[in-house]
């Protein structure tokens, strides 16, 4: 119900009351789930990135009561909306999670399953300019500099700018940057490279290029269990398989896939009503006997 105006908690049907409780319970647990999600799921489509509840509360009150004080809400919500869009995209093998400390920094990992970079697991961090969405395009920096023409061999930064010369609000979204980051590993582009060596090898000596890539992929894998580069409660951490922890989580994921409806139905018992026949705009046009229960 609406916060300020719900004048009559009592008037609302009991059903919704209880739902409300269960729903908020659901929401409350989500950060928990989000944190247990540090372990990346083995089945990509199964993964349900949890949108982190926005919590700009803490410091917002310190700003003055002007309109300006709502600015942070816009920014944080825009980023949250961007994150929601990422979730909707379901980019295969790409996972991100905004950091705990700043909504402008997202941790991510990308799994490459085919092609030259097959088996690559590359962790990265996305830095969103704080004047988003009116600023430059976000930066994407790999934790380890992957051997790639478009990745700076020293800093690990991906050349995002070439794809997003001008970052335009409404038109450009962060999921596009992520999609781009995935794409560069499948379609190698060597024009004006950040890593000229890689570019030259790719053009002139593909065999050597391939072996360097394999080395690079191996190197990244060998550092997979390292502590995260940036310390943050929401940083993505890999750890060896530990049956005590992971078996249960895996089981949960697999069973959830089988009957996705059930857990939801129980936790959120809200159900709307509809007797409209699909395609019709007539109320009560649905056949009898098929009414929802």
């Amino acid at each position, binding site marked *: 119900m609406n916060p300020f105006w719900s*004048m009559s908690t009592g*008037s609302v*049907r009991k059903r919704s009351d209880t739902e409300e409780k269960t729903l908020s319970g659901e929401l409350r647990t989500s950060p928990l789930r989000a944190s247990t999600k540090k372990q990346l799921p083995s089945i990509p489509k199964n993964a349900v990135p949890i949108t982190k509840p926005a919590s700009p509360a803490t410091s917002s009150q310190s700003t003055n009561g002007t309109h300006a004080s709502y600015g942070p*809400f816009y920014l944080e919500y825009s980023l949250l909306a961007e994150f*929601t869009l990422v979730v909707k995209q379901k980019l295969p093998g790409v996972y991100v999670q905004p950091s705990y400390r700043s*909504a402008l920094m997202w941790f991510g990992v990308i799994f490459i399953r085919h092609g030259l970079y097959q088996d690559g697991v590359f962790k990265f961090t996305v830095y969103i300019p704080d004047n988003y969405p009116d600023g430059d395009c976000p930066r994407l920096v790999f934790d380890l500099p992957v051997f790639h023409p478009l990745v700076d061999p020293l800093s690990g930064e991906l050349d995002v700018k070439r794809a997003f010369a001008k970052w335009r609000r*409404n038109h450009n979204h962060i999921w596009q940057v992520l999609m781009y980051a995935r*794409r560069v590993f499948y379609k190698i582009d060597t024009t004006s490279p950040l890593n000229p060596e890689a570019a030259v090898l790719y053009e002139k000596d593909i065999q050597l290029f391939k072996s360097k890539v394999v080395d690079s992929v191996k190197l990244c894998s060998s550092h997979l269990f390292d502590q995260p580069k940036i310390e943050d409660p929401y940083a993505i951490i890999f750890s060896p398989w530990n049956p005590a922890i992971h078996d249960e989580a895996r089981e949960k994921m697999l069973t959830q896939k089988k009957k996705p409806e059930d857990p939801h139905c129980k936790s959120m018992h809200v159900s709307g009503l509809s007797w409209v026949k699909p395609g019709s705009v*007539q109320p009560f046009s649905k056949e009898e006997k098929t009414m929802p229960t």
Partner: protein
Amino acid sequence: MERMSWLSKLTPRTGGQRAPRSASLQPPVTADPETCLMVFKNHWAQVLRILERRGNKPAPDDLSAVRNNTYQMLNLLAEDRPRGDGDRSQGNGDVACGPILEFVAAENLLERLLCWHLQGDFTEERKVEQLKLYEMLISQARQPLLRHKSVLTPLLRLLSVCAEPASAPLENSLVLLLNQLCVSVAREPAILELFFHSHTDQGPANLIIFSLLIPFIHHEGTRGQQARDALLLIMAMSASNRAVAQSITDNSYFCPVLATGLSALYSSLPRKIEVRGDDWHFLRREDWIGVSSLVLFMNSLEFCNAVIQVAHPLVQKQLVDYVHNGFLVPVMGPALHKTSVEEMIASTAYLDLFLRSVSETALLKTFLRFVLLHRHDNTTILDTLVGRINSNSRLCMVSLSLFRTLLSLNCEDVMLQLVLRYLLPCSHVMLSQKRAVRDLDIYGKTAAKFLSLIPRCCRPESPPSPCDRDEEPSARARGHSSPGADPPPAPKPSTPSRLSFFMRQASAAPTEAAAPRSPGPPTGSPPQPGARDEVAELDRNYLEYLRDARHSIDRCAWACRVWSAPYDGEEPRAPGPVPNPDSPPGRPLGPPTPRTKKRGLPEEGAREVPGGPLGGDEPIAGGPGPDPQDGGTLVNGAHGAAEPVRPEGDVVVKKVRRSPQGEGEGGGGTPNGASRAQPPGWEPLPSVDSLLEELLARTPAEPPGAGVSIETFTEELREIEAEMQNGSVGGAPATPTEPPEPPLSHEEEEAFASFATLPEGDAGTGRAPPRPPDPLAQVVASPPRAVGPPPNQPFTGPFVSVLFGKLENMPHNSLYVNFLLTGLVAQLACYPQPLLRSFLLNTNMVFQPSVKSLLQVLGSVKNKIESFAASQEDFPALLFKAKKYLIARGRLDWAEGPGAAPALRRSDTLARSRKPSLGELLLRHANSPTRARHAAQLALQGLRDGGLHPLAPPARHGEALRVRNAVYCAVIFSEFLKELAAIAQAHAVTSPFLTE
């Protein structure tokens, strides 16, 4: 209102009752069966001696002797156990019956006993005795007795003797016995079969149970309760037994009695609801629990609900039909149309109560069908109720409550009739904007827009920041002319502060919240510094609005999963101007505008008549504007081509006007293309922008305007769309892919090509943005100017008109009306359907000139408040007091509210304790009048020093009332804007998992 749950109440009662009783009556020592049989025979011998003394009336001694012996015998019979069965639990099966029962059967003992009673003067007293004995026997029996004819036949005979109306004690015993009988039958459904085959003087045995119980359906007290419980058990059994269901529907009066009983009970409800406070607006349990006639009605309604919950679909359907035709149509319909306002108030409140109480979908459906489709005097109930919103305060409040209930159902049919069907044709937006319907505002522009409407006089700081100064005059100047045309001035605090905001250091956590807050300079002259802080809290509660908005939207989105269509501007398609052939005649199909004569003329009248008194000063959208004659020709297509031109020109004007403030996004990329295809200033619309981008990118070599026609472009888009629907079949050759999982799907390629500025030539075939589930990247298959039926007359429906009219009148509405009204609009705004969401919340949309937007309405309220504030010297002080009063009232109520979550109460931040105040408490008061008075008194006491009293008590004369309403309105309006802003923001972050 709690849901009706009959069965849950039922089970513990019967269970709890039995245990102690059987314990107390049980003979302390269970003798061995042989002894018992001997004793039994002994008793029987004595009785027999009397029974066989034929002829004369039995002497009193005989009577008492028989009575005593029978009592002993039946007790023994009850204790009798099946042979070879030490364990009572398996007593059902095919175990042989106990020795006493065997004896009873052989002697036909019970039958003979009853015959003897019937011969003589079978007084009521003796009937009661017999009923009690049988009741004891059945409830205590250790073996199934009813399956034996020797028990069943006399029992049924006894029952048929008791069919006539009788004294209360007899009825009590009768109902108790019947109840017991039903409990036994429910335990052993096979017995029911026997009932079918046993006949009594009154017909089949199963029917006698009914015919005896049915008269008690609507009784009050335990008797009625037991009767209903008993019937419910049979109903539950009918669920799995079609024969039973059939006999209920075909051979009993159960459903008609139950349904028409509602009518009878309704007629004895108070015609006028005695109201205690001026804030009362709906019936809460506390309100009706003391009104016996209402309790009776609610019991029966609850019973209907329970029957529908458990009974066989046959019974369900019959009952539902009877409720509709025997109660709603003949009784509720006329009741809602009574001429006296008091009666209208009462019937509306009753209907609201009923809707809130019914939990069974089938029953609810019947109520809703009645409300939405039934026509009384040629007007649907719905339209009548919508019109009532426009009336004066109490009736308006009750009606608003009813609609709150309706909206809270998340029912597609309701929303379709109320709003969506008027939005479906998309005729309320400029044609070119149809595709923007699905846009989500992810940058908070809408929120900024709403927040910018907070009247200056209500803003926390007295010296407006430079930023405020900038936007203020322009925003006002724009006012009505171009709602949502311009991007909101993005509030830009300096970068460092924003950065610091995002650094959620542990140290900067909760404690920080209170400390560095600079107390906003008070607008009034606050009595104490503490109060000032408190009131200032209202300026900092935005986060809570965000939280609640998110919650409400999530819930609503989740609930709407069951809907048949997304209502995103494409699906479902709006019905054409020709009425749908399979639609029931006489029912409105589309917008009841003059233009669509065939569909809804009657409603038009209904809409405008009640619109008179209060909505006078502002035109109801669609009402006065359109010319019916003109519309009629348009239907025939005569002006089809001309029609879009006029509004289009209008848009151009608006756009030119707003272009100076345009943010210039995308402007650089599309200079000439934009001017060729579209009027200048076109680009602020993201979707159009992107489309134009695509268009331009596709045809780099061609001279502008020459090569690409809208048609071919559309065609291409269609192809792309089709390709994407078929997966990546169509355009696959572009990228050689590996079979199992193409690393980059065609789709992905296209998507990438659409946003990335790759070197020329790399872009591949698909230039259009993809159509993933992402609503932000929409491609609409239809060309910018759809060639189709001429758009319907833009009219967004009576409900929206009435709400907007009422909103516009906010400064004159009472506090409570405004609470309900803004709550209802907020509720509406939480619906996730793009059509509705864009209509209410997309401030970038350009509507047809005759369509008023929410933003326009709010803008006019803002202006009214500001001019009022300017005219009222002491406005700041009044405003302060109003806030203070509302907060105090709220806190009091919240603190004592039973529903208050401990978490909320214990929270030490002021914001938290503030939150429930305004809203919760106000209506809480309405709910419990005594507490309300008490709370109000306390609040007043506490505030008297502050000089609040001129505001608080009901003002006596008009001027004071006017001032009071306006000041309260200022408070509510500001909060409402925050709420709307929060809702607008929350829509952009709704989890996709809720809707998928």
